[in-house]
């Protein structure tokens, strides 16, 4: 309590409140450009914080992180390319809403859900950090492997009835994830004699290639004369979220935030996985699962609340155990150290006041995000009015600049082009991209921990079933696949009956 009050005191300085909007604005813009992620925004801005006092510096960086995770939804909704990997699940319903002319509504819901998710996450960080940290320590290799199996089971729900293609897609993704040096034995895999492939393929590079480049290629059939729909400026912001829709979205937002917090607190996972798992849960428990993937506002609500719900929670293992929850928190951890705070078990005892100021500040960050986001939303919604022939070169330029800036090398630009071409053909053959992405995201987590578990158990797979948490995850995965199978079989039967009736 004493530290809590001390934290309030440290926080209550105008400078702290001045850097938050700045950080948010940078985060939202960086997040909204495909290829530029909040990671990059953080790296660029760390030097700016050298002169600041620790609370101010960390709050500005946190604002970039949260703003970036929300900002990534803007491009996911508007141009079918997630700004960061955390926003990939927003594609399912966000872009279809834009196609239906409801872009403004989708953007508003993304902001609202992100804010609520972020707030819940900040509050759990504030009150539950130590107990949650204790639980994450129980996660050994077997548990991580089971968690990634559970993550992959989401494929069943997101493959749009072609589970076979979904599985092939996941295998393609897992293959892509295996490129580079194997972290357990050090063997180089699938590098085709290319030294630079030793490090593997960066997630963000794969993301730009898979989504953005192929999206532009998919539009090659686009005819500016006939395909561009002119929309008047006033019509865009007219379609607002109704009271009924807000009411409908409370449950998805609640589930999303909760799953976001749990997954976020598990080191090495992050907002992307949280969003997929939450999306799948909401879709399965929905009374109208058939509307998901076709522009369902609840779909946007759940994915955005989940990825921002992970934002504060990823800080839990970082602050208490010194293990970053995802890539951005790894950078944040570096920033903490630069400002003389070494994350780990003793940080709360040594720097309690500053930490409480930062955790309370995270709540302020989320409130500010809603205000600033509302301004941006109005502006961004008009992007849908830009004819594609003008938008495409701009997007392409940003993609190339973004992929170059990730590692400062031209090599990555070739990689996005290769990924783009592969992805284009897969999409022409009706493959979904999301299972591929899940494979890429979960591949390393799954493989590493499977092999670690095998070493520990001396080659016996029983380790996955004798440990309770691991066994529970595997059971949930099996049950959710079976439930999905039964449901889709029923839906097919119903559709056949309807056809028979009509005939």
């Amino acid at each position, binding site marked *: 309590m004493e530290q809590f009050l001390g934290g309030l005191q440290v926080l209550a300085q105008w400078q702290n409140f001045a850097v938050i909007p700045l950080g948010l604005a940078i985060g939202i813009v960086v997040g909204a450009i495909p290829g530029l992620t909040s990671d990059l925004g953080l790296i660029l801005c760390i030097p700016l914080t050298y002169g600041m006092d620790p609370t101010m510096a960390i709050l500005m960086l946190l604002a970039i992180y949260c703003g970036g995770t929300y900002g990534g939804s803007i491009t996911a909704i508007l141009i079918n390319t997630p700004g960061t990997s955390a926003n990939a699940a927003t594609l399912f319903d966000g872009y279809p809403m834009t196609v239906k002319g409801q872009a403004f509504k989708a953007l508003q819901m993304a902001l609202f859900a992100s804010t609520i998710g972020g707030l819940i996450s900040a509050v759990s960080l504030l009150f539950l950090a130590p107990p949650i940290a204790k639980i994450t320590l129980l996660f*050994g290799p077997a548990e991580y492997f089971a968690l990634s199996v559970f993550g992959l089971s989401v494929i069943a729900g997101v493959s749009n009835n072609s589970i076979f293609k979904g599985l092939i897609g996941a295998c393609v993704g897992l293959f892509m994830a295996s490129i580079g040096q194997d972290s357990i034995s050090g063997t180089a895999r699938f590098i085709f004699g290319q030294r630079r492939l030793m490090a593997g393929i960066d997630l963000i590079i794969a993301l730009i290639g898979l989504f953005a480049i192929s999206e532009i290629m998919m539009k090659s059939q686009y005819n500016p004369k006939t395909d561009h729909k002119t929309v008047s*400026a006033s019509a865009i912001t007219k379609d607002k979220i109704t009271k009924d829709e807000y009411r409908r979205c409370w449950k998805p937002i609640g589930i999303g935030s909760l799953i976001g917090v749990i997954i976020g607190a598990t080191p090495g996972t992050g907002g992307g996985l949280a969003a997929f798992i939450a999306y799948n849960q909401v879709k399965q428990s929905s009374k109208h699962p058939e509307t998901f993937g076709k522009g369902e506002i609840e779909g946007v609500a759940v994915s955005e609340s989940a990825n921002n719900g992970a934002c504060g929670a990823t800080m839990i293992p970082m602050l208490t155990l010194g293990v970053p929850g995802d890539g951005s928190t790894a950078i944040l951890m570096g920033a903490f150290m*630069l400002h003389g705070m070494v994350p780990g078990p003793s940080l709360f005892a040594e720097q309690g006041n500053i930490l409480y100021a930062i955790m309370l500040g995270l709540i302020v960050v989320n409130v500010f995000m809603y205000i600033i986001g509302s301004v941006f939303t109005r502006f961004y919604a008009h992007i849908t009015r830009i004819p594609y022939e003008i938008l495409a070169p701009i997007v392409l330029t940003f993609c190339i600049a973004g992929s170059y800036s990730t590692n400062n090398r031209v090599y990555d630009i070739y990689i996005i082009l290769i990924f783009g071409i592969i992805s284009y053909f897969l999409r022409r053959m009706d493959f979904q991209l999301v299972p591929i992405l899940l494979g890429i995201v979960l591949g390393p987590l799954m493989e590493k921990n499977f092999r670690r578990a095998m070493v520990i158990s001396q080659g016996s797979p029983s380790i996955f079933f004798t440990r309770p948490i691991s066994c529970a995850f595997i059971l949930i995965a099996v049950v959710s696949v079976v439930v999905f199978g039964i449901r889709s079989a029923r839906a097919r039967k119903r559709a056949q009956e309807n056809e028979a009736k009509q005939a």
Partner: protein
Amino acid sequence: MKKLMSLALALVLALSLTACGGSSSGSSSNTPATQPAQTTEPAQTTTPEPAAPASNWPEKEITIIQPWSLGGGPDVITRQIASYSDKILGVPMIVENHTGGSGTIGMNDFLDAADDGYTLFCCNGPLFSLTPSFIDVDYTIDDINPLVGIRITEFVVLTNAKSGITDIQGLIDYANAGHTITYATTGGPGNDSWTMITALFKTLGIPCEAVPYDGGQEAINALVGGHVDVAAGSPPVYRDYVKSGELNCIGTFIPEGIDVDGIGHIASFKSQGIDVEFTGMDYFAVRSTVDAEKQAILKDFVLQVYADPDFQKFMADMGMAPWGADGDEILSMVEAQTEAMTKYIPLVQG
């Protein structure tokens, strides 16, 4: 009219993005695009500082290639050092992480860069003494010149207190009772902690299996969570857990043993009669063809940082001390380590 409007919108979008890029890169100078403008400006007018060095080198930003990941020990120290560059050298210093391939990707990028002194490398011993035995490399120690030391890595071998193992004899007894020891390392084969703990157990003749993790913190957490029997760690990651009694130190590879604040003396394996020793080191290096005068300026800069009380406090908080060794000392240490490794490598590969 509509077309004009949409064009204007597109322009505004593009402008807002470039404006943002400008605002963040302007002060950090992290984007290569802004650099030519900087270098063409006359140096005399832009550096009006009183304590201008005799030589007007460096004139543009300096890049440190960091082969290890962001937020790790060497990265954090390097970034802290780089933050002094604006003040002391009058030019910004940028840290770029070129990770992967056990550090060889960064090393190759560094050797591909021009030898004009504007590129530094955050180097270590194992890149020469160990890695070449596990990965095909096309560099040798002659390609680089160690400039100045950064830190000494003091690996300690730890066990979980719940296991009841407090010393090396306890570990041997545990293994003799029919257990295979599982140990968490900070990286895969070719990594220093992997090699040294493996060498330790092979020397003792204990059945063992390595469980490679990504970095020291992950390895320690695996031990704290009870997922492995043994882990290797270096400060500051294990300190708190040893102080709180959750982990036991059973020895260090540093031949003289080490004294850790709040823990006391940790005996070396050598003093316990086991013939394994290792002293890890991080240091800055430049390409061996870089002008000697430039090397001296860079070395002097790093030593000035080490003399700064704030920097010393920063290192002390991390449980380390700046290591100001000069190039010759580092070279002879790397040579000695390479020699020592010829003993361990057949042992761990066999």
